[in-house]
């Protein structure tokens, strides 16, 4: 043992040896942060390039505004509206079912539930969020549809309502957790002020706290809507594959996501118009969900500004 030895030097390790090592580590860390940008770029490039091949054959106005969609079988029609409508119908129904249920649950968890109940219910909701979508698709065709057909015998085997019901269960965790956060982040002073004025709890919650948390709640709903539109397996299994502009929830409809699955399952040959239609629909789906997500982000940013 040397005297006056510097412990830092004696215990020097692979991390402290030289500047080249440090530079390599730094480079690795920096480039892994860059990879996320690369992924976005790759998604955009793939969607734009392959969709452009599609748009060479089909004019963009025909694609966006015509109402007949049959790209896989003759006579081919490329009006995307029926499958957009299918997505909107199922997601819209799912959202209108999950808003009352989800918000009540969120209000209950944030304002009424005891810490003990919260400790049980919150993990349950997280577990629900973890259930794979294929399970919900299976539930739709083996549990929900038979129940619907029992009460409404005219229901098709593949129908939009059954898909909406399971999608409701799938987006419920999003609405509940995010709305719960929004409601919980309303300052306690607001509630105390209400109590000091001798209002009851429900009056404070519904007239003061919820309006204050409104933009956060709407953000959670918008995000859930975007999730519902991007949801694939449950709607593919439950809603069928009939492009259909209808308001009748008991009929089969096809969503954008279900079309992508159908087209890619059938071994679509590379380079054909069917193959490119896959990317055109995916591009549209990407644009819709992206704009909903950005809208939702903007709403939550407003909340943070309001309370900080």
């Amino acid at each position, binding site marked *: 043992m040397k005297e006056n030895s510097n412990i*830092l030097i004696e215990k020097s390790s692979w991390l*402290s040896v030289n500047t080249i090592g*440090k530079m390599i580590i*730094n480079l690795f*860390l*920096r480039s*892994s*942060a860059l990879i*996320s940008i690369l992924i*976005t770029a790759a998604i955009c490039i*793939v*969607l734009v390039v*392959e969709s452009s091949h599609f748009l060479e054959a089909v004019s963009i106005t025909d694609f966006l505004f015509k109402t007949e969609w049959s790209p896989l079988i003759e006579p081919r029609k490329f009006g995307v509206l029926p499958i957009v409508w299918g997505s909107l119908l199922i997601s819209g129904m799912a959202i209108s079912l999950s808003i009352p*249920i989800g918000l*009540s649950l969120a209000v209950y968890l944030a304002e*009424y*539930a005891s810490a003990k109940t919260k400790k049980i*219910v919150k*993990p*349950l909701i*997280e*577990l629900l969020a*973890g*259930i*794979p979508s*294929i*399970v919900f*698709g*299976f*539930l739709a*065709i*083996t*549990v*929900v549809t038979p129940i619907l057909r029992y009460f409404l015998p005219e229901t098709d085997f593949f129908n939009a309502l059954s898909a909406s019901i399971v999608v409701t*269960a799938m987006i419920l965790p999003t609405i509940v957790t995010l709305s719960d956060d929004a409601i919980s982040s309303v300052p306690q002073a607001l*509630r105390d002020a209400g*109590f000091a004025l001798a209002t*009851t*709890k*429900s*009056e404070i919650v*519904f007239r003061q706290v919820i309006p204050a948390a409104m933009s956060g709640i709407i953000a959670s709903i918008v*995000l859930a809507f975007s*999730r519902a539109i*991007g949801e*694939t*397996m449950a709607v593919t299994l439950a809603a069928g594959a009939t492009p259909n502009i209808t308001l009748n929830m008991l009929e089969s409809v096809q969503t954008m996501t279900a079309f*992508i*699955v159908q087209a*890619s*399952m059938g071994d679509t040959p590379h380079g054909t118009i069917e193959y490119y239609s*896959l*990317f055109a629909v*995916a591009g549209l*789906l*990407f644009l819709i*969900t*992206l704009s909903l997500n*950005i809208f939702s*982000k903007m709403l939550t940013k407003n909340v943070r500004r309001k309370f900080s």
Partner: protein
Amino acid sequence: MNNTAAIASNLTSFQKENIEPNPLAEDGNLPRRIRSEKYTRWFLISLATMTILFLVAIISDVFYEGFHYLDWQFITSFPSRFYEKSGIYPALLGTVWLVGLALAVSIPISVGAAIYLEEIAPPSKFKSIIDINIANLAGVPSIVYGILGLAVFVRFFSLDRSLLAGGFTLGLLVLPIMISTCREALAAVPNAIKQAALCLGASKIETIFYQVLPIALPSMLSGVILSVSRIIGETAPLLIIGAASYISYVPESVFDEFSAIPIQIYNWAARPQQEFHLLAASGIVVLLVVVFIFNISAIVIRNKYTGRRL
């Protein structure tokens, strides 16, 4: 919070003691308001209970159906036209391969990105662009990742419908979630520890690797476990890149075709015969048990270590 109850009881005692007419009671609507308060509470409690009971009911229904064919033979057999001999062995192995490959891609990248964004990068335009970008990637539907995998891995790198293509696609899919959970884990490490290490002459990178990372590890682990359960359950991207619907051999290298548990379930569920639905239910029991084990352990790890802040 029992404020309301406290206020209400205060009010009633106030009414009893006071001989003067009570201005609140004179108002006349206090009993009604307290009643509606009670109704609201009961409505919310019963709705919460009903929702949870409904979900438990439909899931236990799957379990009930699933135990019909669930035995050791189901786990160790190949899928077959004959439902009584059918099993998920190749799908199970496919899923194990996929999890391994996806984690091999996503763990180093997401830990690296999290360290860079949380510990090294100074606040800048570049960093905020990456932040926004990761948030947006997390919202991209999984099927779009499937399309990305199809165009980039299957076609461009001509990996074909191999395990490698599937694993890479799923690795990219979980990247945004993993980066954000790793960042949260790093952000929760107290600043005092970093400062202490830096004061003792450790370099920035030494501080990160010897002090910050070991403390953040449990929370990171819970994020990784959650991602694993996501990888196991993901179906749509694998269908898009063309996971095999029927496979009669065990994948032996990363270039082999593959199936996965959710793909197998999808194929059984999409058939009209009732017997195959029972097989699908058995597959779902296997899938759910695995996913629940992973999710619950992630929740337990997280709860254990978030309480224990240094």
